């Protein structure tokens, strides 16, 4: 009696363990699919120029510096356009809505959205949730790649001292 009970208990625990493993594996599989579907790649303006034309269906992130003097407000009152640059290539970005607090010309910016057929980047989100002196990592990397990081950094340091 007790032996069979012990056996059945063992079997029950085996079921439980396999259920847990199954749940974990299922979740992992779902996670991986989600990864494939929803990972957004980051492009610097140079990489974007190399890979154009980009499909308008593809969601992507771009980043760089907002070019000085490029911010324009369109006549409809709510759309703005600005140019994002890594000092080698530029891309024009259009965004409808309120720009984040730390958005400024000459500063780093990351935008998420898609390319339209005209070669303009239509941003659905402009990200600048960070300290005002902080450069988004992607932007810093993009600037390093384009070889203009040192001068930007020197300029930033100068701005900070002022």
């Amino acid at each position, binding site marked *: 009696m007790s032996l069979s009970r012990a056996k059945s208990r063992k079997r029950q625990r085996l079921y439980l363990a396999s259920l847990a493993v199954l*749940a974990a594996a299922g979740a992992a599989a779902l*996670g991986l699919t989600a990864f494939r579907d929803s990972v957004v790649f980051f492009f610097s303006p140079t990489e974007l120029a190399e890979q154009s034309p980009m499909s308008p269906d593809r969601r992507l992130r771009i980043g760089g510096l907002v070019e000085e003097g490029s911010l324009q407000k369109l006549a409809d009152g709510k759309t703005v356009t600005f140019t994002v640059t890594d000092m080698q290539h530029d891309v024009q970005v259009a965004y409808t809505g309120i720009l984040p607090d730390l958005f400024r010309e000459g500063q780093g910016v990351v935008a998420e959205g898609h390319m339209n057929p005209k070669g303009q980047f239509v941003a659905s989100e402009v990200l600048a949730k960070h300290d005002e002196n902080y450069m988004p990592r992607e932007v810093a990397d993009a600037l390093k790649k384009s070889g203009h990081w040192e001068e930007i950094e020197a300029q930033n340091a100068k701005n900070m001292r002022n």
Partner: protein
Amino acid sequence: MIAETGHFALILLMMLAFCQAILFSPLGIVFRRGSLGLRNTAHLQTAGGVSSLDTGGQHGFWHHFSSALLTPGAVRISPGASLSPMPLWPLPVLICLLALGAQASQIYSFVTSDFTLAMVAQYSHSSTPLMYRIAAAISPDCGATLLWVTLTSSAAILFLIQNAIFKKAENPQAIVSVMGLVVGLLAASVLIDGTPFARLAAPPLDGQGFDPQSQDILDLFYSPALYAGLSGLSVIFAATIAALPRAALHRAWAEMLRPWTLISWTLLGAAMAISAYRAYSQQSWGNWWYWDASENAVLLPWLLATAFLHCLAVLEKTEALKPWTALLALSAFGAGWFGTFLSRSDLLGPLPAALRSSGDNAVLLVGFCVLFAGAYYLFARVAGQLRENADFTLVSRESAMFINSVMLAVAAAIVLIGTVYPLFLRWLGGTIITVGPPFFVQALMPVTLAMLLLMGLSPTLRWRVDGAASVGRRMKLALILSIIVTLFVWMRHIDAPSLPLLGIGLAAWVVTAALGDLWEKLWRHRDHGESKYRNIQLLGPRYLGMSLAHIGMALLIAGGSASSIWEEQSVLSARTGQSIEIGPYNLQYEGVSLLPGENFATRKAKFIVYRNAQPVTELYPEVRYYPIRGVETKESAIWHGRDGDLHVSIGDRAEDSGRIVDVRFLPMMPWVWAGMLLILLGGIINVLTRMILLFKKNGVSAP
């Protein structure tokens, strides 16, 4: 001078904390015997608790040696040696006083605006209001770590008090030792990674000001709640390390840790709720959770603490799931520590070289590696020997709670991977990817739905053994009701996406199941000749807290799902007097006025909100300009209506001389906030009633 005193106190504290770690450990016993001039320290004997771990005689010496290392309390000095046990109180109390002193001196320098200190100059300004000067002292990295040190050393004192009253801990010596190690490592991190007491050679006339984005009453409580939660987890961690070598994870251990678990779980939840509400009210796009690293750093330990909370309940009831519970206890604190490191290291975004003064948190990382490599090594060694009498069947509350805790751990793993994988890829020099909200939502939603399914089910299951048929009978009503709700919502919004819809349905399932169970317990049970009120009392705080938290979670999921489907938004350039329609509301824009604030200037817009032509309220979204940092912040105005949130923010002046206005209506969003409050309330009720019951002599004891 004050700051130097604080700095000195911190250095002294660190050394004392490491001394505490050594003296209360078995090494300390060896050490003390040596220093007392007693020869032959090898004949330490281990107490009975360990002998059960003895698996064979081959490696007897090593086994004895390591178990002496691992089990401080179990080491018994052989008869004849006159070595009194270390007194528990003096060292921790001294350390706590030193920590409080260091913290006080640091806050004092902020309050008096001593700009010769680098940290004060960087984060404060003479015009910063007093409240935010204190916040500036405790919220940036090094200040926050100092706060963490203070709270952890205070938690050690609270543990000693608990231990003095209830005497639940078997070897408090070991717990005190591990706490000493944690405090010492954190203090070392404060001192080396970037001390808040460093002076400037050429102090500026005034500081650079407090981060305007955090200038808010709610934000004041974020750091204290987060780090108090983490300190609570460190006590749990220490108690687990102390109990593991003796395999003493039993009922008394669980009872001792219960208040710690509940309190730190509630505090971490509060920190998350604060950051969610702040993000919601500060960004113009009405989003309340971004899945960014600093948010995930709190979510990770919270998920694991939730899993631990449930397993602890199982362990307390039936002494089952011991290894899994121990693993969760270690991992919860580990996730908290790692998350803190991750959110403040420059892995997520390098600071320009001009700002890179706060170091790279190397000590925090090294401390993490040392502490948790040791902890997991210990766990791997002893986990196999944890005996448990797990006589529960597949259909029982234990197994439901176990599966649910596995799901929570899997959710934590997904969050961790989503946070770390892009860093890893970038570190390899590969492509830069972003793992944003779409990934987390898509990957976590199925896990969350499965958890909701079990969450409705498990409170109604019986312990140890239950029959599938009887479960079906009990849950019939809840099942039917939740299907009706899902169908109803689906019929009204036929094109709604399926996952959020399922979320709403399962939330209905959890709520109906919880309410049904409550009804069953209150009215179907015999009232023992007394009033029904007595039945409520008999349910006990644990049941009430659990039901509230479960219902809260369901509301949160339902509200989040619904607002994501049915959000309405309109961005326009508004002129004074213009009226804007959104959802059931009608807003009239009354223009912007420029007003002075405490340390900012604000452009405050006025909107009169109408519903069915009746004025409901007035909203004042702002754009603030902080001249010290030269930064603008936007403060949205939110009206929590009965069927949704009205979220209004303003931007710049538009080209056609109107003002950009972003208006959103987020249906059922109040459910999210109500859900968060209910979850917190569940935790608070559980803790408070427990305390009241303890001190009330003739009270009803918790069942």
